[in-house]
């Protein structure tokens, strides 16, 4: 699994344009919303949690669509089925690399986002933890959808259409967590962690059978 993880991280490093789309999309949504509000900029701090979640869902969903597709098209997926390592581990390694490569910058952008939305600087840690946990849940969900739609033409559009409704629970709990800044440990955080923990084995098992079925 670690070989797959390091190989995938190297892939993102050498093909940074793939990640730049994701970051660019994320930042653009954040920048465009304040422009649309114009004179009601005082609403911005209250809207911040919802906007952050929509940006995370859209950018991660878009980025994950090609996660398995590119290996299926190049024939690498056929080879992964011929090695002693289980396909579940391959899926796990690919997801983990994707999560690390997308979640880290989204967390690093947080101070800038906090300032952009006029939120108190003391909320940075709270927002970073919330975004990291939410990205965890959404990246697993998005990877699951990507592996289910493997081999499908125009998978990108289909996977975003599937992701957005399925990610609604994460968005509801996640934005509520961002609003309750009085303590770091909140039940909403626990929900997002439980959601991730529940989905991770499903991703590995269902992912392996979807890949085999797509040959």
């Amino acid at each position, binding site marked *: 699994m670690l*070989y797959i993880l390091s190989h995938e991280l*190297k*892939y993102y490093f*050498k093909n940074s344009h793939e990640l730049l789309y994701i970051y660019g999309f994320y930042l653009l949504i954040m920048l465009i919303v304040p422009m649309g509000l114009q004179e009601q900029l005082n609403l911005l701090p209250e809207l911040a949690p919802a906007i952050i979640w929509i940006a995370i869902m859209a950018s991660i969903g878009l980025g994950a669509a090609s996660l398995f597709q590119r290996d299926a098209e*190049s024939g690498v997926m056929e080879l992964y*089925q011929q090695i002693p*390592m289980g396909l579940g581990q391959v899926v796990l390694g690919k997801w983990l690399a994707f999560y690390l490569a997308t979640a880290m910058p989204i967390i690093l952008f947080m101070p800038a986002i906090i300032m952009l939305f006029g939120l108190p600087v003391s909320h940075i840690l709270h927002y970073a933890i919330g975004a990291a946990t939410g990205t965890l849940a959404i990246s697993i969900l998005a990877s699951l959808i990507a592996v289910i739609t493997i081999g499908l033409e125009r998978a990108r559009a289909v996977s975003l259409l599937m992701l957005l409704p399925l990610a609604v629970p994460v968005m509801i709990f996640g934005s509520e967590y961002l609003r309750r800044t009085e303590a770091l440990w909140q039940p909403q955080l626990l929900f997002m962690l439980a959601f991730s923990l529940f989905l991770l084995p499903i991703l590995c098992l269902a992912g392996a059978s979807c890949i085999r079925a797509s040959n």
Partner: protein
Amino acid sequence: MKSNSLELLNLQVARDGQSLIHGLTYRLNGGDLVLVQGKNGSGKSTLLKTIAGLVPPAGGEILQNGTTLTNYSQPSPLFFGHKRGLNLGMSVADNVRLWARVTDNDELYNAALHYFDLDGLEDVPLHTLSAGWQQRVALTRLITMPAHVWLLDEPTANLDHDGMQLLHNLIQTRVEQNGIILMTSHAEIQGEKVKIINISELMEEAEVVH
């Protein structure tokens, strides 16, 4: 290598629900080199994919050393297909090393690069190489992923004379080492012991009997 055999028992092969090959019974032993021939669309590639376990057989059985071959069987046959399994956005070394590592054969990495004359090209991005050199990079898997059975679908594509010679030598060595090779190829295959399965003729004969 220990005893090595591959049996196709009344094998039926289908693609997208359409039956291409039926009633194929054939036994291969260690040291056999079989050339699969047939018209375009006769099912050559699908036959290889089926034996590789990538496509389930529509009927019949495939036995490796007497036990049914499934896509979980180890050691798995090595399938070299039309899709080359290369990551063009990465370097030659990245592409070769991945397969040496995941099969626990990291020590074969240098030998594989050296055999296909790729020394010094390790850090070159794959998309800057010509199709023939990319093919050589893909063929390094024959060294880094040892398997008892090789299923090669057009392995000679894009290769120049030298590359072809390297591949032929590799195939001959494998055959002498008791390996089993099934391949499709438009290029001439040298060797005294080449056997031939012609799918188109086999299926036509079957039609006449019916």
